[in-house]
């Protein structure tokens, strides 16, 4: 749009293209950062409500400009560089951390027309960019040259790479259903929200992405009481602020990506004709998801590292693998939805209840219902089976322990008999 206007104003086509791209980039890149200044305030207010406090309330109305004050304060703080630090690595780490998060914004479809660039490998791009954050953590740990930092970084990396597995496995399901990796295609094929078609994948993705972000209950990356803040212990001032910024931005982007992949993105009544409505819908959806993650963060206590890794490798990964196989099987079992036929019925002559239904609910939605229903039932069945299996395993384990207790002389029954 901007490009055409500039060319009409008599500008060189190449320069106009560049300015067009630059404009888009600046908007998409600063969007995340601008959000954080506001989002931290929301999060602090929500946290305060949950913990029965007031939250920021001094700087500005309702403490709204508290964050600007904080940012200013961090700006005039000294950036202390430890003597033994590996300087280039030390300073590169926070930059890479922010880059790995901010780059996600390039492919997020904010509405049917507003998208940075619709790569045909969009989702894979998101995953690839996200995996760079792991390297930033390692670099921060090494660059600080501190035992706590390096140990914390190693733990953090063990957690981050572990949870990447169920996350990626869960994302195979939307890709399979949409038949494309492009983010815009993924949104457009959600005639029924993928949350209802593939609930297991949605929940697995949300948990894994939350763990990737390193927030409570998975905040072992910066467990204050064990690792005195982990890999970013030696950072101060603005260098530390960048880690903080990256974490908050990541939390918000996780919410957006979840909305795009499982809650229909910008889809909603009238979103195709009025793209601005689409942005509004996406905003609402991602705010709801964001609230859920903040809620989780503030109410669930931190897990132990062995539990954390066991949850991942012994429950989530097998479940995700079973889910992929089940979904693939059911997907082949049900005939592929015939959207063009459905559209023809909806636009054709009015013949009774069926065509009325198609017209009322939208032809694509009705056409996708059988597939969605079968997959939903399959997902529920898998979940019930998994829960039963876990119960059975837990019961067996408990019986083993109880049998062990009976054999020892410390068991109360034995002692009384003697």
């Amino acid at each position: 749009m901007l490009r055409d206007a500039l060319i009409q104003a008599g500008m060189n086509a190449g320069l106009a293209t560049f300015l067009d791209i630059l404009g888009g980039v600046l908007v998409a890149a600063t969007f995340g950062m601008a959000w954080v200044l506001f989002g931290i305030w929301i999060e602090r207010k929500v946290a305060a409500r949950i913990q029965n406090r007031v939250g920021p309330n001094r700087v500005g109305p309702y403490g709204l400009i508290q964050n600007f004050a904080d940012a200013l304060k961090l700006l005039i703080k000294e950036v202390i560089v430890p003597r033994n630090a590996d300087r280039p690595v030390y300073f590169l780490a926070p930059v890479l951390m922010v880059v790995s998060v901010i780059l996600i914004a390039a492919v997020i479809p904010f509405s049917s027309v507003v998208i940075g660039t619709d790569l045909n490998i969009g989702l894979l791009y998101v995953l690839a960019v996200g995996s760079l954050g792991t390297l930033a953590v390692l670099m921060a740990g090494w660059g600080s040259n501190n035992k706590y930092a390096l140990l914390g970084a190693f733990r953090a990396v063990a957690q981050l790479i572990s949870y990447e597995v169920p996350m990626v496995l869960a994302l195979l399901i939307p890709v399979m259903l949409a038949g494309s990796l492009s983010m815009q295609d993924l949104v457009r094929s959600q005639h029924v929200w993928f949350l209802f078609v593939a609930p297991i994948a949605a929940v697995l993705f949300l948990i894994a992405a939350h763990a990737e972000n390193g927030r409570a209950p998975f905040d072992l990356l910066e467990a204050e009481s064990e690792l005195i803040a982990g890999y970013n212990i030696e950072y101060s001032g603005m260098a530390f602020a960048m880690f903080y910024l990256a974490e908050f931005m990541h939390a918000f982007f996780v919410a957006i990506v979840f909305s795009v992949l499982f809650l229909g993105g910008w889809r909603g009544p009238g979103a195709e004709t009025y793209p601005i409505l689409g942005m509004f819908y996406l905003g609402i959806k991602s705010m709801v998801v964001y609230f859920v993650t903040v809620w989780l963060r503030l109410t669930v206590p931190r897990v132990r590292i062995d539990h954390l890794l066991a949850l991942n490798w012994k429950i989530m990964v097998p479940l995700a693998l079973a889910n992929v196989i089940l979904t693939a099987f059911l997907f082949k079992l049900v005939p592929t939805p015939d959207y063009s036929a459905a559209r023809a019925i909806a636009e054709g002559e009015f013949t009774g209840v069926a065509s009325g239904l198609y017209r009322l609910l939208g032809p694509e939605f009705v056409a996708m219902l059988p597939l969605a229903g079968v997959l939903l039932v399959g997902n529920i069945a898998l979940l019930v089976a998994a829960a039963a299996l876990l119960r059975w395993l837990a019961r067996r384990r408990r019986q083993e322990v109880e049998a062990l207790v009976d054999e020892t002389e410390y068991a109360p029954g034995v002692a009384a008999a003697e």
Partner: protein
Amino acid sequence: MEITIELLVFLVFALLTLAGGLGVVLARNLFRAALLLLLSLFGVAGLFVLLAAPFLAAVQVLIYMGGITILIIFAVMLTRGMVRARNVFSEQWDLAAIVSLAFLALVVYLLWQLQQGSSAALFAAPPPEGGLENPIAALGAALVDPAQYMLPFEVASVLLAGALIGAIYIARDDEVE
């Protein structure tokens, strides 16, 4: 030859790749070497994008930068004491340099010969237009097509399973603690 933006971008990525590679080979500190390896791998990913293979670029970042390099860094950390060693090169480094340079010279000579001779047209021509409509779907179909790559696909799974089992078996030999 005309200087285009594409050519400049290519030069940048080529420089990243080669400079990173040289850094990996010459760095005394192994952790720095691993970071320079990242730079080189990133350059290669950029070259893949220029070659119209964005899927492979993403895979390069995901597997190489996010997977193999982390494994290498972990191995560096586990085998301490060698990071800031005095002699990073063996006694035969001069021989190694001669062999590598000879190899490079040979390839350059061959390329030059080809450019002068039979492959002149191919070497100067721009890449053909068109290509596949949906390359990723085509790749997916090719990977499971019995007439194409079904066997390598399954063998890859066997290889990876074997590598995992073997590597775990080796890395966790508990008798030496």
